[in-house]
């Protein structure tokens, strides 16, 4: 979202609405909301230029709490609605808010296509590895064997890996962050927002009611120092308080002593990003956070606008008369 505009000074609270926030007490969504509001206030952009488009789910309630334009659409379809919106008004700053069910179950096809088209929007995927709104069924990102209301003997579905899926779909930007880590989230939001093209941000989000502590092994305040890798371009992929790091060897990341790691993070390396995406705790010792992949590529809306310009400069003058009088016209007197 590059275009620079006259700077506006707004505060976090300018982005809050009067609505009672209706998530469960303790839900990770609160922190995300606060961080997004805080971030927007730093952008210098005007409230009216932001549009939050969401599907259905707990996460998808988000637009109601943002004092911007907002569209709470139907389950899974936010990307297509956002596409129409951006095509009609490319200058808007559009954010899509979605959950793991919304994006990876019913909305999987639209996520695929928005990513490959590279529409210039930010997508926040609140991944709590559960269907929250419908009260606790396993979701496509739930781990195999998960016992939920709909799987009393444990689920048998191999999970979708949101990062790998995004990369395979041709995402030009994928990052991962954590609901409880406001500082990191702010950083990631900034990188995503500044990216030209579809910036998919997976936020590990705690559903306190139906899937509490799902990420605690590697993303909690205490464990992340040990087991999360906060990727930085040009830096080794260190973790465990700088003692260890991931090294890239023959297409696979292995944990080594920090000083032995030769690989530095290169967000444009597709295969490396894909290999990073495979790392899941506890199979892997550490889980990567931050911008795993970023590539510069023309955006759909950019090409669309260009196409319109080209067509306008090539086409006959667009008058009603010319519209009607095409082809063989004859006159009857």
């Amino acid at each position, binding site marked *: 979202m590059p275009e620079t505009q006259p700077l506006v000074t707004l505060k976090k609270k300018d982005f809050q609405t009067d609505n009672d926030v209706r998530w469960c007490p303790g839900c990770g969504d609160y922190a995300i909301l606060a961080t997004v509001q805080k971030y927007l206030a730093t952008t210098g952009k005007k409230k009216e230029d932001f*549009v939050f488009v969401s599907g259905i789910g707990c996460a998808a309630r988000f637009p*109601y709490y943002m004092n911007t334009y907002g569209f709470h659409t139907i389950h899974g379809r936010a990307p297509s609605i956002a596409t129409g919106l951006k095509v009609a008004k490319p*200058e808007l700053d559009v954010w899509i808010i979605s959950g793991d069910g919304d994006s990876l179950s019913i909305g999987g*096809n639209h996520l695929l296509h928005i990513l490959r088209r590279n529409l210039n929007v930010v997508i926040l995927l609140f991944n709590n590895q559960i269907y929250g709104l419908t009260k606790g069924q396993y979701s496509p990102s739930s781990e195999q064997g998960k016992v939920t209301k709909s799987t009393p003997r444990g689920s048998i579905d191999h999970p979708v890996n949101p990062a790998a899926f995004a990369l395979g779909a041709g995402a030009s930007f994928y990052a991962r962050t954590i609901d409880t880590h406001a500082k990191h989230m702010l950083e990631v939001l900034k990188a995503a927002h500044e990216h030209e093209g579809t910036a998919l941000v997976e936020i590990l989000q705690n559903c306190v009611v139906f899937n509490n502590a799902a990420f605690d092994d590697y993303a909690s305040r205490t464990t992340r120092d040990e087991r999360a890798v906060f990727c930085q371009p040009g830096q080794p992929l260190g973790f465990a308080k700088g003692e260890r790091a991931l090294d890239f060897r023959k297409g696979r990341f292995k944990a080594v002593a920090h000083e032995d790691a030769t690989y530095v993070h290169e967000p444009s390396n597709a295969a490396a990003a894909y290999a990073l995406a495979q790392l899941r705790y506890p199979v892997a010792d550490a889980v990567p956070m931050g911008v795993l992949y970023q590539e510069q590529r023309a955006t759909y809306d950019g090409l669309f606008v260009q196409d319109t310009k080209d067509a306008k400069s090539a086409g006959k003058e667009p008058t*009603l008369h010319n*519209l009607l009088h095409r082809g063989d016209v004859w006159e009857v007197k």
Partner: protein
Amino acid sequence: MGTNANVKSVERVVVRLAGDSGDGMQLTGNELTRASALAGNDVATFPDYPAEIRAPAGTLAGVSGFQLHFASQDIFTPGDEPDVLVAMNPAAFKKNIGDLKPGGLAIVNQSAFIKNNLRKVGYDESPLEDPVLNERFRIVPIEMNAQVERALENEGLSTKEIGRSKNFWALGLLYWLYGRNADKQLKWIDEKFANKKKFAESNKKVFLAGHAFGETAELFGESYRVEAATTDPGHYRNIMGNQALVTGLVAAAQKSGLEMVLGSYPITPASDILHAMSRFRHYGCSTVQAEDEIAAIGVAIGASYGGAIGVCSTSGPGLALKGEALGLAHIVELPLVVVNVQRGGPSTGLPTKTEQSDLLQALFGRNGDAPLPVLAAKSPADCFDAAYEAVRIATKYMTPVILMSDGYVANGSEPWRLPDLQKLKAIEVNVRVEPEGYEVYQRDETTLARDWVIPGTPGMEHRVGGLEKDSLSGEVSYVPENHAEMCRVRAEKVRGVQAEIDAPELYGDLDGDTLIVGWGGTFGALRQACDDANEEGLGVAHCHLRWIHPFAPQLDAILKRYRNVLVCELNSGQLAFLLRATFLKDVKSFTKVEGQPFRIREVLAEIQKLQGSSNA
């Protein structure tokens, strides 16, 4: 021009061209149509694609047909049965000869009547010598391949290329037969093949050879002339339904001053709407070929939310997939036009055939009470008016509108009198930029439309969505009475569209006992059947509905005035069902679900039967 044949003047001719899918019959048909239209005839066409994939050469399944009716008077349909059949191979002959009018002319490419081809369609020997057929029809076999080869002898073309230009030979012959202006056709060939000079030259040669053949061979006793029809003064173009529809949409966008975005996923027989629209980008009308049917309407809704006119085009199975999203558009009250070009159902059904069986789906195919305006186009040219009207209502009332077309209307063509630009109704748009006192579900007193506030407008930030909303503020509301009120007002708004609708036009013998009622693409057949019935003194009136929801004012009184009301439609009685429920009138149904349009005489026979029984 010296000619060896008499020139006979006739009022109307129905020609059917039939050949393999690869034989170029659609192109030939379209060219002859254009020439006839340019000569001032009234014309009506009916292309009949065989199946969805090009079948192996020479099989019955691979036959592609094109029927053209041209006349010196007003005509309404492509005609029940052809006067002339052009058959390019045994399959085409076999499939179509039964439809030819007794005594009709069959021009046959004899070169294709070889063993192999005959066997493919189950002929033991060539039917061209069959005495029974020869008694019934005037069969003229011509060795077209030889003719074409001769014409292209020294052009250095491959056998395949030579074979492919047969259709221009046939076109030349038909030009001679009906005295069409050959120069214009030659010019057209030049333009069409501007980049492939070689083909331009060869096709012109072949065309002229066909023309000369008619002139010199003594196979035809006479050639024919159909005078120009005495039509209303004005400028005319020949136009196909889907083209007219897109023109209507673009005209409405242009008139409104707004951009238009068509979200579409290709589907027969609606795809040409996407194709045609993709050429109007310079009018600010753009297309997004979406990843699926749901995304297509999603794009359109998003565009409307962003202040453009969102449109999507589809056919029955696609409409089925859009139901949920249509409900969203209904509840958020954004303007949207959904075009449904109907085809044979249920399920994948008969995808290249015509039918009218999506009407109840259009009315009721979504969850909850979510009424929408539904209107239908009655003929190819009428698609312009219907599309324009759909946009006008959608923006004025801030509502999705469903526009029904069908395969017959979409692919058929007829001369279209270009509308008077001055007389095109204004497109009213409710865009609001004034924040003072804005409430999301505040409504216009007359239309009950809410304001259209486009994201980016300062000071009017608000949220919309599929959950029920407070009837004023637009905040989510679970208040029981509010929900009732919102359901009521949304329905009332849609019913209020009736204020835009003229009382239905009644045609024919208004004082008789019988009224035939139709909607959509059956217009021509019903109108002609009405005329024919009245010629027989049967006293029949015809009423054709533009609007299905809401119904036109005074329809109640009209229906009740007639003892016999016969609702004719290409489904199992869907409009009849609606009329019965709405007006409690015991209307009768005449239906046909064969993937084919009505024949005039079928309708006439039904009228006769009805009157017979009701008089008995």
